[in-house]
Structures are given as structure tokens and as C-alpha cells.
């Protein structure tokens, strides 16, 4: 039986002036899997994610997320996804507890605030304002926000950037928990150990193009011992174009 696609991307193109961010990108994420989007800085990961959630309008190509068009059916889509963006922040004068209560009210289903704060390691911070948090706590809170609407699809852009080892381990556990609960997770990262440990399948993109897609063991192939070696070989600017599919 075919597994339904959570995300379908075909021929996605996006330019910023003369800079080509996405150059005919194709991707397919299956329902219920943890999918790693790998690439060097500037490879197009964030542009891909922002296009998937309707923040960017592509120049060309087709995108369906949970069967919906992110631009034309954005409101319906946003009720079903949770997103942690790489750069987004929250208002410094909002307390964590009240922010989650406020945001949760926009979703048909919502996670209980205290449980969510506890799950993200912020149990005793409900009355603390976002502006008073450390960098790592802020990232954990942004993850809590992504989870507040009990999303079917969780999209995380570099979620472990700036986290200490404990927080990183907690986040990995949380991603595994989400998967076990039937959620699909799209994880953009350049930590290859993270991808190898968490992801059912990965895609490596470079200069806005797909170089390889498949289970980590399939992508490693070609005589490489680890995903990191395969990634370095594929994304070196001296590597032959095309890569493997």
C-alpha cells in the first residue's frame, strides 16, 4: 500500500534578485516519518521551509503540504502544522504561560500549557517573560509554540542550534515522541549525527537543488562509512554536479 505524502514539492524555484535560492527542487515527505533536510549554509533549506508554510511565494513549481496549497489554503494548513523557524522570535514582554494560552486558542486542538512547558524543560518558567530567557531557553520555548496546536506535521528549522547537550538530547527525545505519536517531522539541520540518529529518510540539497534523497543508509552508499562523509563529498563545490538520487 502506498504511503500518503505529507509534503510534495515539484520543480520549486525561488530567486532573490540575482541569487538563486531554489533551482527546480523536488522533495517528497511521507506521512509519519522523520525527514531530514540537509544542506550547507545557504543551500536553500530555510527558503524551502518558508515556502512550505506560505511565507514565501515561489517563482515556479508546485507545493502541497498535507494535501493543501500553502498560499491559497494557508489558514487551513496553519491549523494543522507546527513550525519552529530558524530566526523567528517572540515578543519580549509576553510571559511564557500566557503566550501559550494565547496561541493555543487559535487551534482546533491544543496542548495543555503546563504539560507543554514541562515537556520542553520550562516547567518553572510560566510566569517569566520571553525577553528574560537565555538563548537555549528561547529555542525550547519556540519549540513549545510549534507544538501548541497538536500539529500533524512538525517543521523544525535548525532546532538544536545554540542548545546545550542536555537540551539537545531532550529535543531528540521529543522528536522521537512526536514520530511515535504518528506525527510527521520535517527537520532542517546541518548536524549530520542528528539526521543519522533521528531521520527515517533524508534529502541533501545544494545550491537549491536536490542531490540525494532516501534512507540515511542509502544516501551513505558509494563507499562512504558515515552520512557525514557522503554529505561532504556531495556538497563540496568541487564535486561533480548531479549527485545521486
Amino acid at each position: 500500500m502506498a504511503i500518503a505524502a505529507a509534503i510534495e514539492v515539484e520543480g520549486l524555484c525561488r530567486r532573490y534578485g540575482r541569487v538563486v535560492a531554489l533551482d527546480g527542487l523536488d522533495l517528497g515527505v511521507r506521512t509519519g516519518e522523520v525527514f531530514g533536510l540537509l544542506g550547507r549554509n545557504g543551500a536553500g533549506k530555510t527558503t524551502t521551509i518558508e515556502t512550505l508554510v506560505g511565507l514565501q511565494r515561489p517563482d515556479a513549481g508546485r507545493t502541497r503540504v498535507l494535501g493543501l496549497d500553502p498560499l491559497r489554503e494557508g489558514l487551513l494548513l496553519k491549523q494543522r502544522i507546527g513550525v519552529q523557524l530558524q530566526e523567528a522570535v517572540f515578543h519580549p514582554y509576553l510571559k511564557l504561560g500566557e503566550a501559550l494560552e494565547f496561541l493555543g486558542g487559535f487551534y482546533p486542538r491544543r496542548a495543555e500549557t503546563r504539560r507543554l512547558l514541562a515537556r520542553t524543560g520550562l516547567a518553572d518558567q510560566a510566569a517569566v517573560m520571553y525577553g528574560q530567557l537565555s538563548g537555549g531557553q528561547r529555542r525550547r520555548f519556540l519549540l513549545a509554540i510549534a507544538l501548541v496546536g497538536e500539529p500533524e506535521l512538525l517543521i523544525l528549522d535548525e532546532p538544536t542550534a545554540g542548545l546545550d547537550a542536555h537540551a539537545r538530547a531532550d529535543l531528540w527525545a521529543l522528536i522521537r515522541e512526536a514520530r511515535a505519536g504518528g506525527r510527521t517531522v520535517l527537520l532542517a539541520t546541518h548536524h549530520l549525527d542528528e539526521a543519522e540518529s533521528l531521520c527515517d529518510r533524508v534529502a541533501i540539497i545544494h545550491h537549491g537543488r536536490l542531490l540525494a534523497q532516501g534512507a540515511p543508509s542509502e544516501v551513505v552508499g558509494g563507499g562512504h562509512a558515515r552520512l557525514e562523509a557522503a554529505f561532504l563529498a556531495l556538497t563540496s563545490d568541487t564535486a561533480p554536479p548531479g549527485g545521486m538520487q
Partner: protein
Amino acid sequence: MRGLWRLTLMEARLFWRTPQAVFWTFFFPAFLLVLLGSVFARQPGQMAFLIPGILGMVLASTAYYSIGVVVTYYRSTGFLKRLALIPIPAWQFVLAQMLVRGAVVLAVGAVLLAMGAGLFQVRLSAQPLTLAAVMGLGTPAFLATGFAVGVLARSVESANSIAAFMFFPMTFLSGAYFPVEMLPGALQPLSAVLPLTYFLRGLRTAARGGGPASVATELAVLALWGAVGALVSVRRFRWTT
């Protein structure tokens, strides 16, 4: 509509937690009223002239600084991008901003009137319908132009510059503190295109008991400014940079 209500409550909470906003919107106008009153209160009719002027100043500063700069700040910090991921239509965000600021301006107006009556025995024989028309049209018109500043500015610095460029000359050229007729002749045509001129003229006419027909021109000009502000805001609004 529950989403609009939630956004409005959140925005109101943020406003009250921003000390600069509360100071400049509530305390500074009250301080200015006391200061000006201590100088001009003995001159007959002077306070009845100044109270609408201070309210006009509050409306303009709320529009350009409180909405214009705040929207740019939200966008430049990424908070607006985060809000864009909530399942709400953009118009609800815009309207929530305007509802909070509109309520604040009305509250400041009430405080100024109460202070004027209590401290300086100012008695206005205002025409309620005219007053409601000028406030009801002038407030959203200004707030829409303020939102347009936030939409057009590319950074907080440029929003501040645009706000200052619009606010400071406008308060002097529109008759907030002294009659427009006292301006040099060369500056009077400038005064004639500024929305604050019409807002203040309408407010003072209402305060003297003038009927709605007597402020028709003022209402038309304010409606035009509001339409331009709303058009720019709707067409150019983006959640992201």
C-alpha cells in the same frame, strides 16, 4: 471573530507592558496639559483651544510612533513572522492594532477632558454627534496612515525617521498649539493638506457646538487620508521582510 478578540487583548497587554508607550501616550499629554494650563489658563478660551490640540498630538503620535514604528519593530525582529504562522488572516492583525490604539486615544481624550474640567474649569458645549463623527472618522484615518508608515518602512530606524518627519512639522503646522492663522503666509498652504489640520478644526467646531454639516469638509478630507492609508496598508502589508 474570536481570533480578532484574542489578538486585540494580546496587543492591549503588550501596550501596557511597554513603559515608553504608556509614558508618551498617557503621562506626557497629562503633563503637557498641566504645563500649558499653568501658563495659559488665565486667558479666556485658551484651554478649550489647547485640549483638542493635545488630543490631536496624541492621535498623531499614536498613529506614527505606536503603530508605525511598532509594526516595523515586529517585522524586523521576526515577531511578525512568528505571528504569520498562526491561523489568522492578516486583516485581523491590522484591525487588532487599530482597535487597541483607537481605544487608547479615546481614553486619553476622556482623561484630558476630565483634567481640563477639574483643574482649569473648562466647560465645553460639545455637539455629541459632531464629536462622534470627527473622532469616529479621524481616529481610524490617522491609525491607517500610521499603519502605512509601518508597512512602507524597511527598518525601525527608517520608521522612526518617517514618523518624526510627519509628526513634528504636522503638530506645529496644523494648529495644535496656536491658530493656523498665526503661521507665516508661505506655510499656510502646507497646513491645508495635513490631516491633523482637519481633525483639529473638526474637533474644535464640535467642542463649540457646531452641527455635523459644519464639519463636512473636515470629514471628507479625513476620509480621503484614511482611504489612502488603508489602501497602502492593505496592498503593501507583508508579514516578512
